[in-house]
């Protein structure tokens, strides 16, 4: 019979103590607050940044849809925008997608890219036309984020937009469009649109496609054409 290990832990030497956070920067009771109290923190203009940050994260964990307008209002905040997205991303409610789309049309710079990245994560198909347009803008970082989001959204429409964008883009944007195309092809496979996916992969093996993506597309074709994966 196997000997079951004892439950007594081995005593190990502790590392030197790290600096102590000041009381105002400790999560403490914030971790246990319910949505109404957390919403009150976001409504309080005088509430410190730390408390607002923690409230955002916790509201996301709770899935508090009633907090969506308050979270969306922080999307342009230099420090809190990521916390607002932390809160918004996991809330399963269409009002989040509406808020993110609205913010994507208004914000500029990295804050706008952050919102596009949240749209990417939520795979909001209604954002497709807006994303397709952004790929052709002059802001390269935004174009790359939009391409990635479009690939993640997936579907036939995204495939057409990405295919159209590939020959019209260059440099880092082109790399992002090509990478998004690979993701989009995988989404098509997941949706059972095998013929479209295989045609997309084939298009991505063209000599002018960035080499890593060209090779990945060939890899995708080989994977899907293996006897185990091919439809019978």
């Amino acid at each position, binding site marked *: 019979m196997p000997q079951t290990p004892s439950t007594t832990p081995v005593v190990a030497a502790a590392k030197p103590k790290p600096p102590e956070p000041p009381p105002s920067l400790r999560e403490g009771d914030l971790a246990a607050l319910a949505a109404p109290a957390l919403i009150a923190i976001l409504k309080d203009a005088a509430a410190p940044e730390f408390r607002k940050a923690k409230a955002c994260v916790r509201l996301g964990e709770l899935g508090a849809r009633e907090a969506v307008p308050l979270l969306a209002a922080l999307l342009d905040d230099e420090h809190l925008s990521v*916390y607002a997205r932390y809160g918004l991303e996991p809330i399963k409610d269409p009002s989040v997608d509406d808020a993110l789309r609205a913010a994507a049309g208004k914000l500029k710079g990295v804050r706008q890219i952050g919102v596009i990245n949240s749209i990417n994560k939520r795979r909001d198909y209604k954002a497709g036309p807006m994303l397709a347009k952004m790929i052709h803008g002059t802001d390269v970082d935004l174009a790359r984020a939009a391409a990635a989001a479009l690939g993640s959204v997936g579907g036939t429409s995204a495939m057409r937009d990405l295919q159209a964008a590939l020959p019209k883009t260059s440099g880092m944007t082109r790399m992002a469009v090509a990478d998004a195309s690979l993701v989009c092809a995988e989404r098509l496979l997941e949706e059972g649109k095998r013929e479209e996916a295989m045609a997309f992969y084939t298009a991505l093996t063209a000599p002018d496609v960035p080499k890593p993506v060209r090779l990945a597309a060939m890899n995708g074709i080989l994977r899907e054409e293996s006897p185990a994966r091919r439809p019978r």
Partner: protein
Amino acid sequence: MIVPSVVLGQRAGAVPPSDRILFGGIGIGSRGAHVLSKLLKIPQAKFIAICDVRNERRETIKSTADQNYGDRDCQMYGDQYELLARQDIDAVLIATGDRWHTPLSIIAAQHGKDVYCEKPCSMSIEESWALGDAFRRYGKLYQAGCQRRNGANFQLCKDLLKSGALGKLKTLYANVGPSVNWPPLPSRDWLAEEPLPAKQVLDWDRWLGPAPWRPYHSSYVRGGWRNFYDFHGGGILEWGSHTVDLCHWAADLDDTQPVEYEPVGTNTGPYFVNCTYANGVKLVMRDNGWDGALKTGSCSFRIEGDKGWVETGDATKIECSDNIKPLLRPTEDARMALENHVNELVRCIKTRQAPAASAAAAANSHVTCHAAFIAYQRGKTLQWDTNKRAFTNDEIANRMRSRALREPWRI
């Protein structure tokens, strides 16, 4: 034309430059330097570029590489995209803080690079899957810094299970302690703000990278980022990324995760997470390992079958039930694991074979650790659907499967 014999690989032991795998490094601190020291010994590889947000680290690593090769070839970068854009670089070592591991690994794959990345490889369940997906998509090679998969004493334990000597597998034990250093629940607090150093000394924005914003404090940068939730997955992920990973590898569970996670204990330890796979096999994540005679060292793991048990760790020695003792043989020192691991990396890059610690294997073992971490945070037993990749009895837990990445970063 006169061609030096070294170019043709005709000098004894020489490798023609065209046959050398060229490496770059991103975020090489003390741990990364240890890995690099093994790589520098391998004639088939050459380390030619370093990227770091800290100037002093860039210069230190350049100096180390240049001294090793007797040249000045190692180039320094402050921006990872500049390093990754180099067509001549085949592979990168990533040894940044945990928050960067998945995003940088994926960016490297998108640039056509093979990757060695330190553990923990991901900050969330979502990142773990994204990592596995990206390397499958690009067909690039990924090796997680789970070097014990190439340790002889660990391999012998795996072999004993596979041979049937231990009988039918019942329980796996993964040491996830000591909690005195890294408790299961890291702090969600912030440290008080200190004045920012000059950007050329430290680019705080880039140091934070995908982690949520917080005010600067020098302690984070000096290695004190661990134990803070925004940068760290606590003791379960810190150690489980080694020892849960070992359990998966030894028991051929590299393609799955447990379906139940039961947290036991407090944040000051000792603590456990009792997990169960769909086939009934148990996995016990255990703070601090085991006591008594079984002092097998840090990062220990243990396999129990219905006929016997075996346990090993960084102390090299193997403890086992009496019936297994005749089957033991001396193994090389466990400290050789890292050297073996880096040799495997170079060999696999050349042969295009998947290394033992592949991205797919890392994804599964890390999802297991993250799920256990979430169960511990939730303080309740969680059920997990391996097909839906979701918890079936707790929606809050499902919302904790991912973390928002600070703009402009994404996976």
